[in-house]
């Protein structure tokens, strides 16, 4: 579990982050109650250290030396977001700049009936059944200081709801833009996705930076996929190399739900993604794919927990990392098959490509199985580009660097090709090939 309870005085770093939390604009009873509870919890916790099992390989000390303050609630004049918008998601885009809903950059004109995309906070008096039923219910904040901090600032962020029997064909694009300033800024984006029974949708959740100012993004995403609903969930973290990005994604799946996730990590100096998926009904089909492509001294840590709490569940998990220079990746993939979750079919694979001698990966699959009639497999590989493969491409006239970038892309392709948005696939391909040639 992340975070440590501190009995004595509050951690000054946490205290600093909570500055201004009391003066947030009010947003209804549920939000107010959550904020107060979460701030209380956060005050009693400290930053995790490498002594915490869950943070063994990721040291937050460099972050602790920075005095982050909540990002000012001011909108920029006309930031150019065009390079991130997706033609496939025209009319389905909601944009947040430094955590604030930016209506002028959002385009929600094309949403079909039954699809809601809006900011979480909608004024003080709004009756908000969705928020009441789901906010703070999936992503628990009693054991993670980062989830608690995010919840203490909850209000900025998006609600996506797909009504019963509704199919949203075009992807829904949630774009979170950070804008750094002279001071280090902290942001708390929140996303709540509710897919009601028999609905179907694709969500692209993207984090980017407009400049190199130091920012700390503390993101929490809650996803509830009801019975017989399908959700394709793409997360792309491409913040600046001076950023810190810590994200929690909590997913609850109902009977016969189909959930697919591609989580791509390209940016930030240090990033962490805690992905917790709970299968809460029979016959669930869950695919989790991750890809981290790092260079310099970047660090990306993914901790996933897949909880097979019910029988007849299927899960396929593939986590790939491509590490250049002195970058580091951590993968800790826990699969829990509870007693009685018979006929679970689970496969996990961690594959890592080291492009330089200074790169390092710590991969740890963790299977905990308490049922006796299950099919579970896991594996991890760490390797380099095969000289024979590089030679093959060179013998076709490609330069060595072109050969290497093509093979590196080929390694990533399995994850990228699963993204159901062609523009995004093309951009990722360009990014990976372009960075290497």
């Amino acid at each position: 579990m992340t975070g440590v309870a501190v009995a004595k005085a509050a951690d000054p770093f946490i205290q600093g982050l909570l500055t201004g939390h009391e003066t947030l604009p009010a947003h209804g009873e549920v939000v107010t109650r959550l904020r107060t509870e979460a701030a209380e919890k956060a005050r009693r916790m400290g930053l995790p250290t490498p002594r915490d099992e869950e943070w063994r390989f990721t040291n937050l000390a460099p972050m602790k030396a920075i005095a982050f303050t909540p990002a000012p609630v001011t909108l920029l004049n006309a930031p150019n977001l065009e390079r991130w918008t997706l033609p496939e998601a025209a009319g389905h885009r909601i944009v947040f700049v430094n955590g604030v809903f930016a209506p002028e950059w959002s385009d929600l004109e094309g949403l079909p009936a039954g699809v809601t995309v809006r900011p979480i906070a909608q004024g003080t008096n709004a009756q908000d059944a969705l928020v009441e039923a789901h906010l703070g219910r999936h992503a628990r904040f009693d054991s993670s200081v980062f989830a608690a901090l995010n919840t203490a600032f909850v209000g900025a962020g998006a609600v996506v709801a797909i009504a019963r029997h509704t199919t949203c064909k075009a992807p829904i694009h949630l774009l979170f833009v950070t804008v750094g300033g002279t001071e280090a800024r902290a942001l708390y984006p929140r996303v709540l996705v509710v897919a009601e029974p028999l609905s179907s949708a694709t969500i692209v959740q993207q984090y980017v930076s407009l400049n190199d100012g130091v920012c700390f993004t503390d993101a929490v995403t809650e996803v509830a996929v009801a019975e017989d609903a399908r959700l394709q969930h793409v997360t792309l973290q491409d913040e600046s190399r001076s950023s810190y990005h810590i994200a929690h994604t909590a997913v609850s799946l109902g009977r016969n739900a189909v959930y697919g996730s591609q989580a791509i990590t390209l940016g930030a100096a240090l990033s962490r993604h805690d992905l917790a998926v709970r299968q809460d009904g029979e016959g669930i089909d869950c695919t989790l794919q991750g890809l981290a492509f790092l260079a310099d001294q970047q660090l990306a840590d993914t901790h996933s927990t897949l909880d097979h709490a019910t029988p007849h569940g299927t899960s396929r998990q593939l986590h790939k990392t491509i590490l250049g220079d002195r970058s580091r990746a951590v993968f800790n993939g826990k699969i829990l098959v509870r007693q009685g979750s018979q006929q679970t079919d689970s496969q996990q694979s961690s594959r890592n490509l080291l492009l330089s001698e200074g790169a390092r990966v710590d991969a740890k699959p963790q299977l905990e199985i308490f049922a006796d009639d299950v099919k579970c497999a896991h594996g991890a590989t760490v390797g380099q580009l095969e000289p024979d493969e590089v030679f093959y491409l060179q013998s076709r006239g490609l330069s060595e660097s072109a050969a290497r970038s093509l093979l590196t892309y080929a390694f990533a392709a399995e994850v990228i090709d699963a993204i159901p948005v062609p523009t995004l696939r093309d951009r990722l391909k360009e990014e990976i090939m372009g960075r290497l040639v």
Partner: protein
Amino acid sequence: MIAADARVILEVQNLTASVNGVPILKGMNLTIKAGEIHAIMGPNGSGKSTFSKVLAGHPAYEVTGGSVRFEGKDLFELNAEERARAGLFLAFQYPIEIPGVSNAAFLRLAYNAKAAANGQDELDPLEFDDFIREKIQVVEMDPAFLDRSVNEGFSGGEKKRNEILQMAVLEPSLAVLDETDSGLDIDALRIVSNGVNQLTKPDNAVLLVTHYQRLLNYIQPDYVHVMVEGRILKTGGKELALELESRGYDWVREGVGV
């Protein structure tokens, strides 16, 4: 087709090479002129594949002596990609798979790399599409293969056909086919051989490296060389292949006192 005044494409003199410090090639001599088809045959471990990889510039093989001139240039002055761009082509025994990269895109990359190096116009995807659709007929390939990832999920025969398609695209002056016939059924062998025969012209040359005589029923060599223990011990016409098929290799060894 042997023509006395044809230009020399490849000239190998007393070539020696090692892998991990173990000598494999022990004095290869071979001259190939334009218009000729050569076959190197030999038992397993004779150094046939090593020879083809040394020619193509595989970094794991260390040249320890001798010389190779290709199109008048010192071959060892060129790295692998420069050799390819200069017109040397190696069809691999085990072509690799490249997921996520379409065959058409890959072929265009290869074509343009060579075109750029030779001062020719590169082709954009549309132009290349016209070009490649003609080329695939050489190996009777379904156009659907152009959109599939390079060699991914291809059968053994399809991979070899894809190698010959690459040869058709790159139009090498010397194509070295390393065990291209291995693992092919009779239909695939016919298609691959037909492809090679269509691509053989008076101004280029082909070197077949093979274990079996079977391929030579489909591609008629002008010269057959027998390679044993890192050297060519005997050279003859295509009838030599039949003799090897019936008598094996031992008599060649004995004949020269190895």
